[in-house]
């Protein structure tokens, strides 16, 4: 028998609301199966179970806010030995500062008042008591919360606060170094255009997918940048899970991972990217995707700036920035011509690697983009 607890979904997370059970008592479960949805500052996240077995008991009712570590369910293991294995969620607790021992108590959701998740979330951000609002109403809608705004000073959103915490820690603890190189993207874009010509519009590959593929390729050759700084040492990861910075339309940014990108060809990378963006915007990410990033890739959009010098997301040790691809003068031999040029940048953790390693990565990245057919 093992206890399934509220996982930590990021260094900054203290608690989350268990929104919905996807299983009931007695249901068989398999490793990787989504068994619940929880609402966090990063949106609604699907939570996977980490072993095969049967749901013995659900310990927490839906719409209950639970601190990280709160027991949520009892799982009867198929393999009893599996019960004591640490879960991959350990990856998600990178803090140098020790996390407070989570209080194993559940905070009852405001008397189980009927309110939409959006309303509940907004109410929390604004510090509005749902019970006070509900006194004379059956259920609460977002509009009712918004109408309270004038009366209260708005607080920053949960996501803003989460980003603030992570970035403050990063800048306080990680000695960053920054490198940059200009990449001639004309060969890659030409090749991609020809490649896409034979494809239907649904299968078309975006330059962003090619860049992810190129970064993964270069990381295989320079694995020192793919991993974590933990216990005062670099731990390289064999799996490459690039966290892709995806802006949300309203506000904020999430960097969910493409898991196991090292095993994907270009088409699979594009498919995974499309799926990830769609689910990020729908708020349908899985816990593994938001906790197991081994490196971050940012600014893959075509609306961005020329170059981006990013802040590393701890415990990762590097962040790759891709600037906007733009027409620029380019010297080739002794001719001056116009080419599609992109600034690729690297922010590295100087505790883990030196500039030489970072330079090697940018060099490999540049090289592979000059022979893009190898990225297929």
């Amino acid at each position: 028998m093992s206890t399934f607890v509220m996982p930590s979904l990021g260094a900054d997370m203290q608690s989350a609301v268990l929104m919905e059970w996807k299983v009931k008592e007695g249901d068989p479960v398999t490793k990787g199966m989504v068994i619940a949805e929880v609402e966090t500052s990063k949106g609604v996240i699907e939570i996977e179970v980490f072993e095969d077995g049967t749901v013995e008991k659900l310990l927490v009712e839906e719409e209950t806010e639970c601190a990280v570590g709160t027991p949520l369910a009892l799982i009867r293991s198929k393999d009893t030995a599996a019960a004591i294995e640490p879960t991959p969620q350990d990856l998600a607790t990178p803090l140098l500062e020790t996390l407070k021992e989570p209080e194993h108590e559940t905070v009852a959701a405001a008397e189980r008042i009927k309110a939409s998740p959006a309303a509940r979330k907004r109410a929390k951000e604004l510090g509005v008591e749902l019970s006070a609002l509900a006194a004379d109403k059956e259920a609460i809608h977002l509009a009712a919360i918004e109408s309270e705004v004038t009366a209260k000073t708005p607080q920053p959103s949960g996501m803003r606060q989460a980003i603030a915490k992570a970035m403050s820690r990063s800048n306080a603890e990680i000695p960053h170094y920054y490198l940059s190189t200009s990449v001639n993207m004309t060969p890659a874009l030409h090749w991609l255009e020809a490649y896409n010509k034979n494809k239907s519009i649904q299968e078309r590959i975006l330059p962003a997918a090619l860049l992810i593929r190129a970064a993964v390729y270069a990381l295989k050759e320079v694995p020192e940048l793919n991993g974590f700084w933990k216990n005062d040492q670099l731990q390289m990861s064999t799996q490459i899970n690039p966290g892709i910075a995806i802006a949300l339309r309203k506000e904020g940014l999430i960097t969910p991972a493409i898991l196991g990108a090292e095993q994907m060809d270009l088409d699979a990378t594009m498919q995974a990217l499309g799926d990830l963006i769609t689910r990020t915007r729908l708020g349908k990410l899985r816990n593994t995707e938001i906790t197991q990033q081994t490196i971050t890739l940012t600014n893959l959009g075509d609306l961005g700036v020329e170059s981006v010098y990013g802040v590393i997301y701890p415990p990762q040790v590097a962040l790759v920035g891709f600037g906007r691809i733009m027409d620029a003068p380019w010297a080739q031999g002794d001719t001056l011509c116009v080419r599609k040029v992109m600034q690729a940048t690297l922010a590295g953790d100087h505790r883990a690697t030196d500039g030489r390693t970072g330079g090697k990565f940018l060099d490999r990245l540049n090289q592979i983009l000059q022979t893009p057919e190898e990225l297929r």
Partner: protein
Amino acid sequence: MNEEQIKQSIIRQIVLIAPDVDPGEIVPDKNIQRSLEIDSFDFLKILTALNEELGVAVPEADYGQVDTLEHMIAYFAKRIAS
């Protein structure tokens, strides 16, 4: 299908894919991606949806001809007619 119907199809797909865009924000001669902050992924989704609805696939080489609402209407009108 006339130009007004094409225009309504385009606007409907933009709003479906970028729900925070107000149809009033879509200015006929402004770059769709830049003015509405639509990234390349969502732009591709819009073209895919329009392909399904109007039966016209825009090749990448023609992206320059569908950069604004005006241009997009003209592009589709010409190809639906022919």
